[in-house]
């Protein structure tokens, strides 16, 4: 089952540490910035 995330739906929130160890939470951008999410393949 794919494409269960669709245009118009609320983006599932998440939090991950960045490369400096700071926690980045998607919902922290609300009211501030538009966010482009780029899910990578993995470095070759």
């Amino acid at each position, binding site marked *: 089952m794919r494409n269960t995330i669709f*245009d118009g739906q*609320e983006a599932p929130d998440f939090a991950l540490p960045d490369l400096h160890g700071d926690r980045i939470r998607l919902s922290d951008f*609300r009211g501030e910035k538009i966010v*482009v999410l780029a899910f990578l*393949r*993995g*470095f070759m």
Partner: protein
Amino acid sequence: MARLRDGYSEFTARNAEILAIGPDSPEKFVRYWEENSLLFPGLPDPSKQVSRIYRQEVNLFKLGRMPLNAVVDRRGFIRYIHYGYSMSDIPDNETLLQVIDELNASSE
């Protein structure tokens, strides 16, 4: 990624941020970010929990994870999503910037 790197200033000029999420370890991320002079946040997701939540496709015949790109508006809603069908099936910056321009114009 090179595309997003080269166009990054166009995104920041529109008050947009890029978050790059990948399955590699933090160590590999740091090396890759340094080697490629990337300025936007890199978010290692070695447990692939976020990748799973967003249903990033793993295609064993195509040797791995397929690219997935999305634009989230300031209210936290998905306004564009693209599931890549091959490793090179990634939206160009113009497509993403146009979505962002429309969101900014409607001042959602």
